[in-house]
């Protein structure tokens, strides 16, 4: 049976509930009850349909997460499982292969034993699958029927539907929040494992970064996990070079667009600037690696910098800065536009020129918003991955020379997780510690920036 079938059946059940309930409500109305119908018949329909569908859906989800372990224990209880190795990876591998074979007979199988387990698996799957579907439909029917029995002319179906809808909306918004929490929890666990091998102090302050995913873990391991060069590279590329490009260009374009451009020009220029924000970062990556980086290397060589490399912090930083321009510009644009017209008039009426008004009144008044925009842009820049992967290089270096290659936290996360190390090797685990640091930094930047924006908005309301 395809997985779509039970879904269709549950929906059909709900539809039937909807029709029946609505018809019943119509009948209440037709009977000319002394009590006026509280809610429109449609609400009665929705009440019963939702009452059937939601418990069924909750049960189905719960069953889907529960049934694999039920299936496994049933398989293990079968006579075919007696030949299984008692513990360890081999046992797990055989079970996994048998599970895959049960779904798809063409799946690869290296252990002859796994084929023997297939019938047991199939049988268990069918059993628990059928139970799941039947119980789901029963739950839906029972709840729908219970809801149907509650229908009266004066039943407040409208209020109940309102409450159910609110619950659905709440659940939807909880998904994002719970996901964030889940990410945080998983990061915390893996980071803790990493810090059992490498001390946090060595990790945060060490200057030597050369993890070897193949090396066996020993006394000297911790010495090659000094992440300071990565933090430096991240800040240098994302918060220094990129911002040196993005802040002046973004601010000036915002001033031009809000203060000088004619409405027609603004109508055309603003969306074009915003297109920059929509370019996929991997495309910026090509641009940085293939166009900007060689040009910067050639320029570096030309002015006599021998160490100029074809992968450089400058190339990555400049392109990242260009990518960030729309963020800075649109935040600055909003903040400048939020400065009341009366302040502008006040300054102009004092005999200030347009530029004096911008420099002395508008920009200072809009400064909190502009600063917040820059902070959001920094947090975006230091979390950016594609550009640095393609243009910044892999060498962890503590240098201020922008023509040399440099590496960042995001680059190393990618490198460590896509490497060949086993999952519990410190090289792999270091990716989580790096991710944790990045997460905390961007989280606090965003938090502070949003607070600043909020306070600044209130100032004019």
């Amino acid at each position: 049976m395809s997985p779509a079938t039970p879904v269709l059946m549950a929906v059909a059940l709900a539809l039937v509930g909807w029709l029946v309930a609505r018809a019943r409500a119509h009948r209440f109305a037709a009977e000319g009850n002394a009590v006026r119908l509280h809610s429109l018949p449609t609400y009665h329909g929705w009440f019963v349909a939702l009452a059937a569908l939601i418990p069924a859906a909750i049960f189905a989800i719960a069953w889907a997460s529960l049934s694999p372990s039920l299936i496994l224990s049933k398989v293990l209880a079968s006579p075919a499982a007696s030949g299984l190795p008692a513990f360890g990876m081999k046992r797990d591998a055989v079970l996994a292969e048998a599970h895959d074979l049960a779904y798809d007979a063409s799946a690869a199988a290296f252990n002859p034993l796994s084929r023997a387990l297939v019938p047991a698996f199939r049988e268990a799957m069918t059993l628990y699958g059928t139970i799941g579907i039947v119980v789901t439909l029963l739950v839906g029917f029972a709840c729908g029927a219970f809801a149907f029995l509650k229908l009266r002319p004066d039943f407040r179906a409208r209020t109940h539907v309102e409450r159910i809808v609110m619950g659905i909306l709440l659940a939807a918004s909880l998904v994002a929040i719970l996901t964030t929490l889940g990410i945080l929890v998983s990061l915390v666990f893996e980071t803790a494992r990493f810090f059992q091998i490498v001390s946090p102090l060595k990790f945060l302050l060490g200057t030597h970064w050369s993890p070897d995913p193949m090396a066996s873990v020993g006394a000297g391991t911790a010495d090659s996990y000094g992440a300071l060069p990565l933090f430096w590279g991240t800040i240098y590329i994302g918060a220094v070079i990129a911002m040196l490009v993005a802040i002046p260009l973004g601010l000036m374009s915002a001033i031009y667009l809000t203060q000088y451009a004619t409405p027609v020009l603004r109508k055309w220029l603003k969306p074009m600037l915003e297109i920059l924000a929509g370019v996929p970062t991997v495309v910026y990556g090509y641009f940085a690696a293939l166009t900007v980086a060689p040009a910067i290397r050639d320029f570096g060589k030309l002015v006599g910098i021998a160490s100029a490399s074809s992968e450089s912090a400058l190339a990555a930083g400049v392109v990242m800065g260009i990518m960030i321009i729309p963020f800075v510009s649109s935040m600055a644009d909003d903040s400048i536009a939020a400065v009341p017209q009366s302040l502008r008039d006040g300054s102009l009426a004092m005999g200030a020129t347009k530029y004096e008004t911008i420099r002395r009144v508008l920009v200072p008044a809009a400064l909190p918003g502009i600063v917040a925009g820059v902070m959001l842009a920094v947090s975006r820049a230091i979390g950016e991955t594609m550009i640095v992967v393609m243009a910044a290089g892999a060498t962890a270096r503590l240098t201020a020379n922008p023509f040399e290659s440099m590496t960042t936290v995001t680059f190393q996360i990618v490198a460590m997780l896509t490497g060949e190390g086993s999952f519990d090797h410190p090289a792999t685990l270091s990716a989580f510690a790096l991710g944790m640091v990045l997460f905390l930094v961007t989280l606090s930047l965003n938090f502070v920036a949003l607070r600043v924006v909020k306070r600044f908005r209130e100032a004019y309301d």
Partner: protein
Amino acid sequence: MTTLHELDPVEAKISARDVSVYYGEKRALDEVSIDIPTEYVTAFIGPSGCGKSTFLRTLNRMNDTIAGARVEGEIRLDGEDIYRSGMDVVQLRARVGMVFQKPNPFPKSIYENVAYGPRIHGLAAGKGELDGIVERSLKRAGLWDEVKDRLADSGTALSGGQQQRLCIARAIAVDPEVILMDEPCSALDPIATARIEELIGELKGRYAIVIVTHSMQQAARVSQRTAFFHLGKMVEYGKTSDIFTNPREERTKDYITGRYG
């Protein structure tokens, strides 16, 4: 049309001839002619939308900042046509200051608010001179005693009436010849209003003051000359006492007696 010379033999600071203002196709002001002297406070009264604020804003060319606004006719300040091409609008606005309906201090310190104009126009040679200008302006605006110990505090933290006096001090600081006030008390309580009216009396004679007001009582209290505007035209202009006790025009009389507006 009554102009100044028929009233007194004093010289006009500003003389407007046949001034019309258009916002796009719409005519907001229709051939207004008036002479405004330095010696008196001149009040513009009239119902909402009558063109009195529009006319006020032509006097320092603040209408320039409104897209689609167009001015016809002639306005002379000390005989100089302020709408001629090549007119330095920035200099004009330094000579003709303005106080707005809603107090609009800059989000800077009290000191910096007053020092703003002198700084941009380079009126003070050094810190001492600037301090002097700030103190003098705040004293003239009647605010010095209230703020002298907290000049570094933000101007926006003052009360509404104090903010408006700060804006007057800011306008005075560049030593203008004319001060335009666009309903300066409409956002203030009666006590703050009385304080501003008193201040207008103190500033009279030093600057030509033009005040737009919704309140006929205020016009009667603070001004010596009153112009009544209606539907974009200036209906009547004369001594304030005459306008309020013995208007020549029927429409003025109707407005004064509360028949409309």
